């Protein structure tokens, strides 16, 4: 394979990988604090994209305002979702919350079909994000240059919050032992709401970036990316923010390279992601950067 081909495929992998990484961070954050796999994360991602679409095309906001509004509203929605679907089950077995998450996911998807309509909508991509940039022989859309920047900026900000602020300390305490944190006087409800808010904010940002890259909205658009980013988070070590980023890039890289080097198997592209999940769970269930946490008695 020629070097320009390899470079183009590398650029494609980085572009896709950084998108997966961005969304996986939100997934992993919620799991880290609540031990909850928020299956509705992909649908919050979809909501962010749709709100941005309506802000720009129906309310005719300039894109920067529309995006901020979409991210803000989606973050609020995430907090509301937690309040309504997960908090009442906080003291129930973990499986109940997981089922509630699956139910919330189906509810949001089908509400989306009813409210937004089942037919896909084209997103009006602003020129800043839609221009094709040529770096030598490699062609890349400008939004693909923004995404890794956002991903790493957010990673840095989140790591700083988690490790160097009081809120972050409260988050780490809640993650270690929720009841002990409660006893120590930490307002656990506030910490959880904050986590969900941030997680949903990231999902919305991911949704908007995704739509800028693949400008086709439909109410079920969150399912596959949600699943793939869940896989990315698990591969990297679920609960670990750095792991989510690593997992995202790894998954994007594997997906693109499989299609590039084994074009006959490109129909199995999604299957590989799931096979990878199974392999990781069998060989190193805590993921690449995860630590095996013994169940505390």
């Amino acid at each position, binding site marked *: 394979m020629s070097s320009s081909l390899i470079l183009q*495929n590398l650029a494609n992998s980085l572009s896709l990988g950084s998108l997966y990484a961005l969304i996986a961070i939100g997934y992993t954050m919620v799991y880290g604090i609540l031990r909850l796999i928020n299956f509705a994360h992909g649908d919050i991602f979809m909501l962010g994209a749709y709100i941005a679409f309506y802000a720009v095309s129906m309310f005719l906001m300039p894109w920067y305002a529309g995006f901020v509004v979409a991210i803000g509203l989606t973050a609020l929605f995430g907090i509301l979702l937690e309040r309504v679907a997960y908090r009442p089950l906080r003291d129930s077995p973990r499986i109940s919350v997981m089922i509630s998450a699956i139910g919330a996911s189906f509810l949001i998807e089908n509400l989306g079909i009813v409210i937004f309509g089942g037919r896909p909508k084209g997103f009006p991509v602003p020129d800043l994000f839609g221009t094709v940039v040529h770096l030598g022989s490699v062609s890349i859309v400008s939004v693909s240059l923004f995404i890794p920047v956002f991903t790493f900026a957010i990673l840095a900000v989140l790591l700083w919050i988690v490790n160097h602020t009081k809120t972050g300390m409260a988050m780490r305490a809640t993650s270690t032992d929720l009841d002990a944190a409660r006893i120590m006087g930490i307002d656990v409800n506030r910490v959880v709401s904050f986590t969900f808010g941030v997680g949903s904010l990231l999902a919305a940002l991911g949704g908007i970036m995704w739509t800028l890259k693949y400008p086709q909205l439909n109410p079920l658009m969150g399912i596959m990316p949600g699943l793939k980013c869940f896989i990315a988070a698990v591969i990297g070590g679920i609960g670990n923010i750095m792991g989510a980023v690593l997992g995202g890039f790894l998954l994007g890289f594997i997906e693109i390279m499989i299609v590039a080097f084994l074009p006959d198997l490109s*129909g199995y592209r999604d299957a590989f992601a799931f096979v990878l999940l199974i392999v990781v769970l069998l060989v190193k269930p805590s993921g690449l950067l995860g630590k095996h946490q013994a169940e505390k008695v």
Partner: protein
Amino acid sequence: MKKVSAVLRVSAYVGLALATVLFLAACGGGNTKAAQSNVIKIGVFEPMTGANAAGGAMEVEGIKLANQLNPTVTIGGKEYKVELVVADNKSDKVEAANAAQRLVDQEKVTVVLGSWGSSLSMAAGPIVKDAKVPAIGLSCTNPLVTKGNDYYFRVCFIDPFQGTVMANYAFSQTKAKKAVIIREVSNDYSVGLAKFFADSFKKLTGDDKAILAELNYNTGDQDFSAQLTEAKSLNPDVIFAPGNYTESALVVKQARELGIKTPFLGGDTWETPEFIDVGKASVEGTVFSTFFATEVPITETSKIFLDAYRKQYSKEPAAVTALGFDGYLVALDALKRAGTTDGAKLRDAIAATKDFPGAAGMITLDANGDASKSAVIKTVKDGKFTYLTTVQPM
């Protein structure tokens, strides 16, 4: 918790049981009601949600319009009101089987119209055959929909013909000698049409290696950068991408983003407003084959259809809407000729359809239940579908 008195509990259970029985009776009763009154049910088996939603919605537009203009049918001297029952197959093969089962078992429809998407029609095939309820496909072009199934018909041409239409265009108009095919491997239509195109193109160029590569993607995929990077490296004269509009718009867009300037050719599934809405400037100049062009009305029915549609929707209809319109009319015509709603006799009446003037052309069904129709080639010009030429059937 306060102990609820035994009397209260028992009454609650009895009340719940009564309510359930009444509810079930009401539901069950509804089905026999239709058979007794003068109502004929026509099942509309279409994807209203999912990847094929736009195609389904457009066909339903045509069927509903025909139903508005022809709300009743006279069978054996008695006039019946025609009621449309829509069953959403959700663009999913499994759901398609469920939806078809619902139409024939619970709704007890007399005839089924649909579906957009050959895979979905094929999923319903065994069900309508077993239930002896004839089905009329509107725009599903894969030959397997009707092959070996006496109860499935269609009012459109089939892909062995459509493949040659685009292969001819590629060879004679685009002067292409080498092509790359990008197909939706989980979609029977896409795989079938790609094969017919490949066979025809190889024959026209006399070159067995005229197809440089067949690149695959799955339904629902959004990232085609790897496949397109490969296509770019092969440097073909033309790229044939007969997939659904959902993915195809993104394929063409990403191709242009990668710097691929090769002409893109496709099939009838491209003709939806979403294709241009999502693809925007990148789909300018793409060429595809389809069933009908409003610029070229073929029969008197075409004019009736166009007038009624323009009056109601104030825009131009898609080709599959005209086919939906035709499907409904063919069903009614067959009911009249059969003089009965009996499945087997109705099937025979549909099979005998000859020189029926549809909005999208004259319909004569052959031994397989397929119609021999001309194809129309369109392109995207200035953000609109524009008619290029008509190709007569072989």
